[in-house]
């Protein structure tokens, strides 16, 4: 059965809150009901029908034909068993607080992808903005489960306060990668900018694909064949061959950030 289809009519003239358009919230609704849902964020009201042409289909799967960097909160609070595909870009907070499910974005994503997501599998074929997996201001933990794969590059503070789950960046990462991370795993296949990689990292594993200098609070623990890395390599083989290859090899372990617990690590190819 074909997915429930939202075809973009024209670029929206304001930021949109697309959180009502997750498949689990659309089950059993008619096209008319869906078109009347409000998705505006300004004083000028905007309904789904003003922006999209709706074609009913299998509501467990939603497809957006056409995207915009004004598509905020897409897939927010998504539940397990549902999927969303966007043929285009999305805005901020993609998959915010999602509990499960699958989101694929063919274009770029804005900041705060997977913020406080607890289990969604998110695949972004373009780039992602700053604060991927990070909490919003005032919140304590960031992403707490699931998996995010970015085929392009990410902005600054990727994995900020990451609590659990895996972030794979196949391109480059901005400054402060894995800053304040609590636990979880971040893998970057490109270059990680800046000097504060894993700044105040408590227990997270940050895996980089190239040798580099780290901060003085990371201490060299030698090169090892790590069993857990082999498990990850096997698990990620289908999703990211590069990450799988990186984890299959011998890794140089730098323990840190010793400015806090020192139980985290940065792993570099040995």
């Amino acid at each position, binding site marked *: 059965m074909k997915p429930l289809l939202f075809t973009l009519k024209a670029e929206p003239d304001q930021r949109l809150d697309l959180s009502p358009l997750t498949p689990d919230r659309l089950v059993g609704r008619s096209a008319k009901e869906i078109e009347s849902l409000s998705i505006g964020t300004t004083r000028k009201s905007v309904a789904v029908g003003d922006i999209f042409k709706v074609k009913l289909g299998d509501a467990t799967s939603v497809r957006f034909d056409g995207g915009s960097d004004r598509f905020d909160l897409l897939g927010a609070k998504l539940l397990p068993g549902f999927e969303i595909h966007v043929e285009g870009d999305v805005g901020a907070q993609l998959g915010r607080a999602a509990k499960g499910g699958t989101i694929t974005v063919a274009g770029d994503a804005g900041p705060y992808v997977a913020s406080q997501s607890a289990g969604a599998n998110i695949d972004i074929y373009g780039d992602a903005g700053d604060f991927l997996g990070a909490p919003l201001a005032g919140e304590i933990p960031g992403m707490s489960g699931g998996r995010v794969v970015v085929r392009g590059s990410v902005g600054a503070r990727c994995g900020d306060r990451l609590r659990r789950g895996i972030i794979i960046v196949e391109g480059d990462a901005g400054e402060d990668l894995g800053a304040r991370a609590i636990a979880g795993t971040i893998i970057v296949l490109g270059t990680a900018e800046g000097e504060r990689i894993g700044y105040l990292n408590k227990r997270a594993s940050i895996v980089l694909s190239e040798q580099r200098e780290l901060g003085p609070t990371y201490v060299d623990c030698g090169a*090892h*064949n*790590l069993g*857990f890395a*082999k498990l990850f390599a*096997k*698990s990620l083989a289908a999703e990211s061959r590069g990450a799988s290859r990186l984890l299959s090899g011998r890794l140089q372990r730098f323990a840190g950030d010793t400015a806090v617990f020192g*139980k985290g690590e940065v792993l570099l190819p040995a």
Partner: protein
Amino acid sequence: MPQLIRKGIRIDESFAEAFPMTGSGVVVTAPTRKWAMQAATTMTGYATSVIGCDCEAGIDCELSTRETPDGRPGVRVLLFGFSPKSVEKALVNRIGQCVLTCPGSAVFSAFDGEAKIKVGDSMRQFGDKWQISKAIDGRRYWRVPVMDGEFLVESSVGLTKKSVGGGNLLIMGEDWAKTMRATEAAVEAVHATPDAIAPFPGGVVRSGSKVGSKYKGMGASTNDAYCPTLRGATNSALDADIGCVLEIVIDGLTSEAVAAGMRAGLKAIIALGPKQGAKRVGAGNYGGKLGPFHYHLKDLV
């Protein structure tokens, strides 16, 4: 006793009486096949019978690098006890003393089961707060630093209450060599059966027991009816041509696995024939009043 004849071997119209047990299992891996087998062999030692051991355990099968979670050589070990608590205690103790200590080893759950036993969660503290947990594909693992690197252990392993223990075959032959030949063939066939183990030494018991004893306080004693040296002196179950009896006890994760193990064992014994191997096959039971699982030999040939 009424008997069937299969290729010249007498098959008693009897049945094996078995009991419900709690089962668990782990996959032990290591950098080489030798060390995976060493860890598995060590952790399944002194685990022949719950009469005197904390559990019944054995090696189910070897696993290739393609079949293990971490892509290293592995061995699947099954462990059985009478209660989830006893199985948990035995498994945690045995992994802690025999696998954690074994160079290069890692431990994974062999199956999901209806419940979980905390294994990694129980022994992570050996890491003295240096241990790190990792969640991969919905499963949690502990990385415990040890002197040769890291001991990787799954946080919990599966447990099933649908297991069965005590399936058995009594293999009777002319002498020790021929009886052993048939028994070894049967043990090999049981080993090839998935989800079933033969926990006794080399899969074989030579000291089958009966319930009760002439001595006070002994719950079990030698099964004199099957002792060839007592054939004329006791109410023997043995014929004149039987000079040796060996038993295979089979535990399985399911009743089907026990039946499959017994069927495979019987098939191997019959295939060997009476000249080279056994002359008669029987099964041990307590009159059918104690164990709810009855495996009739006539249904298995």
